[in-house]
């Protein structure tokens, strides 16, 4: 039976988001006070011990990221919180911002202190205007009470947090694109290297972490990295916020320890499919993640096991799709997303994705042909290894895994047949 733990979400629903008092009563800011008594090296050591890995999608070990930034001498350094949460099916950062905003403020302050940084930025997607208001309010209250601003808690450390908004662009979640956007430029990704730890915001060394990654920091500082790590598996420390969506009874965000199986999440927590429907496949990690069938449901959610099974942890999105849906139509929906969101800069993603969508659209219209499979394969082989940024690299993943699972359905579409009755072939098919 799957269990829920509340490390990151301990305060969710228990504190009022606009009440610093509530937060303090829930032992808020204890971690910052403790951090102030630690050296940056000690803090980083705890983060390393926690086995925390980036929750924004890429899963890069947070401790290593922090260590690398720490080793860079140049100042000033900037702290950026990636709150763009654009991965479809992901709605966990929102919970933290909307329900426990001070936790994020505190976490970023700890990070700021660790790196001697005086400025932090939270980049919140334009689609979350309310989260923006809540965060701004929290920042203002914290500042008023001396938890932000000059000489925090009477120390000689000063830190300010600036709330910034996006305006609708998934690619602005990519960290270098985000920094461009924060500088007022268009959010198309930058060439890497140089790494953002060296040449980041305003060309200065910069830390970019996801909301959920930050949110784990207070717990880690307060209780020690080992304690946090102990909740998870050997390699994947702690807990993960999973966003369960699609055709399940209980959709929502669940905090589960690493090692919980996907089946447990879908059936124990999610309550399985709605009445009368059957599991068809699921997609993990958002639209950029792979689709998989029944056979992989027992994969434990952790970086190692998902990796072994061709899955990812990603942002923690888990989308369940039942048999009322058409695999081809689904693939087309994903492809539409990437065509809509490609920044357009590089050939592979700009042109490759529109080709892919053209092909899939033809399938849903009954106009597909056998040769199209070769084209899809070519794109699926090349885009992941040759696109400019992560968007293009992952754009074909759902489609190629979908075809692996449901090649027969794709072939049926060539004949003008859709099992789920979704595709209409109204234009007469072939």
């Amino acid at each position, binding site marked *: 039976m799957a269990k829920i733990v509340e490390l990151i979400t301990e305060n969710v629903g228990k504190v009022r988001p606009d009440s610093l008092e509530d937060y303090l009563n829930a032992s808020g800011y204890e971690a910052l006070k403790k951090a102030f008594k630690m050296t940056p090296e000690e803090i980083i050591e705890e983060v390393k011990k926690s086995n925390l890995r980036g929750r924004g999608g890429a899963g890069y070990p947070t401790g290593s990221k922090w260590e690398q930034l720490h080793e860079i001498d140049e100042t000033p350094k900037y702290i950026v919180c990636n709150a763009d949460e654009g991965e479809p*099916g*992901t*709605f966990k950062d929102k919970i933290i911002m909307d329900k426990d905003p001070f936790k994020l403020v505190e976490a970023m302050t700890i990070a700021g202190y660790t790196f001697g940084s005086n400025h932090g930025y939270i980049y919140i997607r*334009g689609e979350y205007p309310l989260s923006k208001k809540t965060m701004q309010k929290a920042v203002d209250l914290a500042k008023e009470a001396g938890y932000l601003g000059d000489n925090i808690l009477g120390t000689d450390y000063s830190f300010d947090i600036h709330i910034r908004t996006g*305006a609708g662009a998934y690619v602005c979640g990519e960290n270098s694109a985000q920094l461009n956007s924060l500088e007022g430029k268009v959010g198309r990704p930058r060439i890497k290297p140089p790494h953002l730890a060296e040449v980041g915001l305003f060309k200065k060394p910069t830390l970019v972490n996801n909301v959920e990654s930050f949110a784990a920091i207070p717990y880690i500082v307060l209780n020690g990295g080992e304690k946090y790590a102990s909740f998870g598996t050997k390699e994947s420390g702690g807990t993960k916020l999973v*966003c*369960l969506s*699609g055709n399940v009874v209980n959709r929502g965000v669940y905090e589960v320890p690493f090692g919980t199986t996907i089946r447990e999440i879908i059936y124990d927590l999610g309550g399985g499919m709605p009445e009368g429907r059957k599991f068809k496949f699921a997609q993990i990690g958002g639209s950029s993640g792979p689709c998989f069938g029944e056979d992989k449901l027992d994969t434990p959610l952790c970086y190692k096991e998902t990796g072994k099974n061709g899955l990812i942890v990603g942002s923690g999105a888990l989308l369940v799709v039942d048999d009322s849906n058409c695999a081809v139509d689904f693939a087309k*929906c994903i492809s539409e997303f990437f065509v809509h969101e490609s920044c357009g800069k590089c050939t592979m993603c700009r042109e490759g994705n529109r080709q892919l969508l053209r092909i899939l659209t033809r399938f849903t219209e009954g106009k597909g042909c056998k040769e199209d499979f070769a084209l899809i394969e070519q794109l699926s082989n090349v885009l992941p290894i040759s696109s400019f940024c992560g968007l293009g690299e992952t754009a074909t993943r759902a489609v190629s895994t979908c075809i692996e699972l449901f090649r027969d359905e794709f072939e049926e579409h060539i004949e003008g047949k859709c099992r789920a009755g979704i595709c209409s072939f109204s234009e007469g098919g072939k």
Partner: protein
Amino acid sequence: MLTNQQIRDVVQKYEDGEENILAILLKLQEASGQNYISEDCAVEVAKELNIPASKIYDLLTFHSMFSTKPRGKYIIEICKSAPCHVNKSREIVKMFENELGIKMGETTADKLFTLQFTSCIGACDIAPAAKIGEKVYGNLTKEDVKKIIQEYREGGK
């Protein structure tokens, strides 16, 4: 129509003008009354911030929340990402289209509503979802759609 003075006032409210350009443009779009940034407005912002208008145009056409053409007072954004899709968002698209008598991408004759798609708005737990301004609506049914539009019609007049 915003006057140049009004535009300058908005721009000047932000300390780090250029860094806050998205917030400025969102604000101006809202203040336009027609949910768009006109060419004149973009040119004025460019002047005020001392950057080429072509850079503003890049931002306006890059981000999906901006429009360079007038839109309705209320923008109904229907999510078309996968989690909403498998929860049959196409049905609610039809409901909105029927209720308003326009197609996606169009604006009603009374300039009250524009129908648009959006990528995921983080309301997948209540899919199929739609968003009007800051308000998010989920688990939408035909009745909901009727009611919502009715409310805005009344409030909008």
